[in-house]
């Protein structure tokens, strides 16, 4: 029993990280097809928004986190109006532009806040089970990540806004001819993606060192999870994160972290090769059978 819980904790922790790293990018890259190399910076904005407001205004943590998310949404909106809207339909150009944005943002943070900022303490406590002790917050993150994903799935797959958004992104000209304000749909969707990335930064901020490059820790995981999820990101994200998390946790358990990292990268290569539509393609195919 203790052993099972231990496995659940390690695996769930890895799953939560992959999921939360990927959610913002799933909207912006998975849905809108913008290769956002500044994804890490959205996370950084969310993290700094949380920590700075928490320290300067002495806000309780959940309010500080909400503040972080709002700041990221505003940041995303500004970016969308200035740069991103010229990149729709040009995925490869978005690489260069978002890389430039990433440089500007990360360096600006360095100039404004210095190389390091005082961090926050992880909320909640810990408890003992057998010979191991566990952080309650990290268990909370596992459930919260799944909850957020469920919300997103519902939003984009079941509500009329979600259907509208997906349809518009897939075929903007038809949507436009039906009277949809395409620009606003894009802007709103991008803002949601930005806000989600900000949420990731806010959630993980109390557990990591607050440096301008904090977002960099998420970016590779985010991309590989979104790509593994496949064409329909909200269907495939959980299975993708679960699979990759399992690979990484088990390989690291038997060998070492470096091999675990290499294993997860190799897993992605194989998935892209043999499952070109990712996990969502696999699920939808089996469903339709």
């Amino acid at each position, binding site marked *: 029993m203790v052993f099972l819980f231990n496995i659940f904790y390690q695996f769930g922790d890895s799953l939560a990280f992959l999921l939360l790293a990927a959610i913002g990018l799933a909207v912006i890259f998975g849905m809108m097809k913008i290769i956002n190399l500044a994804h890490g910076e959205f996370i950084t904005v969310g993290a700094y928004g949380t920590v700075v407001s928490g320290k300067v205004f002495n806000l309780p943590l959940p309010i500080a986190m909400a503040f972080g998310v709002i700041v990221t949404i505003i940041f995303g909106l500004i970016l969308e109006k200035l740069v991103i809207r010229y990149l729709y339909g040009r995925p490869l150009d978005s690489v260069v532009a978002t890389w430039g944005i990433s440089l500007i943002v990360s360096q600006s943070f360095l100039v404004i806040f210095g*190389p390091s900022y005082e*961090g926050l303490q992880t909320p909640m406590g810990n408890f003992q089970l057998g*010979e191991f002790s566990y952080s309650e917050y*990290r268990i909370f993150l596992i459930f919260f990540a799944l909850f957020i994903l469920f919300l997103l799935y519902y939003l984009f797959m079941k509500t009329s806004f979600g259907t509208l958004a997906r349809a518009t992104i897939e075929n903007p000209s038809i949507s436009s001819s039906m009277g949809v304000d395409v620009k606003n749909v894009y802007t709103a969707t991008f803002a949601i993606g930005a806000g989600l990335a900000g949420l990731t930064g806010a959630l993980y901020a109390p557990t990591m060192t607050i440096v301008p490059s904090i977002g960099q820790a998420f970016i590779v995981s985010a991309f590989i999870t979104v790509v593994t999820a496949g064409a329909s990101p909200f269907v495939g994200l959980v299975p993708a994160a679960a699979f990759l998390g399992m690979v990484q946790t088990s390989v690291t358990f038997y060998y*070492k972290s470096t091999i675990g*990292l290499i294993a997860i990268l190799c897993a992605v290569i194989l998935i892209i090769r043999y499952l070109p539509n990712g996990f969502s393609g696999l699920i939808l195919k089996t469903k339709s059978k």
Partner: protein
Amino acid sequence: MKKIISLLFASMLLFISNANAGSHSGTIKLGILEDETGNFAIAVVPKIHAYELAVKEINANGGVLGKKLEIVRYDTQSDNRRFQEFANRLIKKDKVDVVFGAFSSASRESIRGIMEKNKMLYFYNNQYEGGVCSKTTFMTGAVPEQQFSTLVPWMMEKYGKNVYTIAADYNFGQISAEWVRQIVKENGGNMVGEEFIPLDVSQYSQTIQKIQKAKPDVLMTLLVGAKQASFYEQQASAGLGIPMATSINVGQAYEHRRFAPPALENMYVTVNYIQEVHEVIKSGEFHDKSKDYVDRFRALYPDEPYINMESANAYNAIYMYAKAVEKAGTTDTMKVVSALESGISQDGPSGVVTMDPKSHHGSHTIFLVRVGKDHEVTIPKIWKDIKPYWLGDNGCDLANKADYSQYTPSNPPKK
């Protein structure tokens, strides 16, 4: 619109392409290559200020050989390629007389070859994994035999013989772990586990579980960089509760000031200096020297977040160079090397530091620092004049035999 942008663009280029103004002759030029920006900036900026402080003081006292010292410095942006580019610039364009700098071992190694090829005197002023035996290079930072041979036996005596190491999975971490293994064995202890973690990892739940399973008395944490430093907050929130020991943290990037307590509770570090020395030690030699240094430092840089141990090394390096040049009567590299090999000492922020002629490394006062529950600092023990014995004992004798290599415990200089 496009025209305006192009015009702005062109003028921006014109503006930035104006190179630095020419420097004065009749000065001694000190080249400095340090990471003012980038991942390593936190620990490096105090070094840069320490160089500037030392130069200012020496110039106020008449300079060296009647000439003023002049700094030519480039920001290497924590990027090895910049180190290479600017090393060449310092040597060939600015024609400096000596080079100081580098934080990570990789950046040091990326330029050491260039320095040696051009017979440029080079001071590396940072702690590292040890083993560099190079005729034209001098190391003022602490090395494993100074930091671990003091720290590990003390921890084992206080807390128990079972030791677990987590280390960054690259040269510095691997070699430091090798040292720990060796010292634990020599002192009759048990390595109950070792884990090597790549530099990019920031999530440690699995690592923490593995540590708990092994039930060590002492946890050696040889973690490098901001991502790996996240371990401390995560282990505290998981309630790990094992005394930690390290040679890397606190002394360089002042984690005890930056992380919310009690992330670093019960952490022990061996450093060759930190700014708290005179706050903790209320009187005596170390108190006076530390306070004097910090006062002068803050007079010039009142907003310095933290005056770390590498700043003391940087400061001492400039003074030692100045002394050696005075002694040699010239800035010619090989003559200054000989002067440095004649037993130069510097009475600096942490007491007397002596340059070992055999290995070109500095001896150090080692302070054992303990971080408490609210991240307050105490100093349970001080070791005076710990010599960098390993290279000399194992065949590196630069005063008599030139060499340009780096050795490790598993690859010592051949006798």
